[in-house]
């Protein structure tokens, strides 16, 4: 039982670390603010959230698991909100998309075509 808990915890830690590493690579490799946000706010959030769950499972206590789940849901729910606010603010301010971008549905003036 102890080994099973340790294996689950180790798996969660590894998967979370891989997600965070992928997010860090993506935030450096993507050409655009919006695509970087795409990497950071999804992969990075999932990586940190998986590590929070790993703490709760490793402790094998229902109270600690509940707290870690609360932190998990809080982080998973607030990260998209902040990323959306930031993307909206950047797009409204006029930060451009990269040249690779195909379509911009929020474009207001047609002269950018």
């Amino acid at each position: 039982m102890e080994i099973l808990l340790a294996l689950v915890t180790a798996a969660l830690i590894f998967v979370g670390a891989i997600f965070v590493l992928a997010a860090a690579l993506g935030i450096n490799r993507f050409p655009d603010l919006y695509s970087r946000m795409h990497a950071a706010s999804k992969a990075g959030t999932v990586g940190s959230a998986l590590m929070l769950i790993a703490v709760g499972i490793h402790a094998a206590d229902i109270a600690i698991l509940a707290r870690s789940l609360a932190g998990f849901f809080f982080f998973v729910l607030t990260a998209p909100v902040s990323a959306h606010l930031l993307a909206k603010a950047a797009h409204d301010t006029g930060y451009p998309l990269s040249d690779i971008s195909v379509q911009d549905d929020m474009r207001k003036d047609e002269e950018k075509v």
Partner: protein
Amino acid sequence: MTGQSITQFAVHAGLIVLGISFLLTAWRVIKGPTLPDRVIALDMLVGIVMGFIALIAIRTGYTLYIDIAISLGLVGFLATVAFARFILSRKLRGGEDGSPPDPRPQSLPQPLPQATLAEPAPLASAPLGDPAAEPAPARPVLRKADQTKASAAKVKIAKAKAAGKAAVVAETAAAEGARKGRKPEAAAKPARTVKPAATATPAQPVQPAKPAKAVKPARPAKPAKKETP
């Protein structure tokens, strides 16, 4: 004890990977060409530090660290929201990115003339144009009327409305306000209505239409009506 060793190994490997990704994200914070890039990288730094805290909680056994991680996530969320509002309120800088020359000349010159029209125009026109040009010749007429007939100001207001003299009504309202103690209100109302009359004529017919219906604001509003045409 194998479970303990497995967990410790996973924690060490996770700490190394998190350190690498932390450095990569910090490089984006340093390098990021625009401000939103840095803000996104900072937001992700908060997430990585939350992962660090979780790993340290596993390693040391102090599960109280979870609360610290939650509060750090709250602070990071609020910081990102505040940065988003800041980016929204800030104009795009020139040399910050390669491509802003497209949206920048459109966005910057537009707010500027609006601001110049809105702010300094009433300030300059109110003291210069109105009291000097139009109400000044009307004042002596009203003062004479007030001095001669000091009985009822409302009757004068009605007469002045009928006469259609703009500044006369304003002055009677001011005089009545001085008697009843409303001086600041009466003095302020005609000034407001007179300001737009000199500055923006197209916006004028909209404003007097509302006060014309009401009884009290009709005093300062009617003069504005008659001044514009």
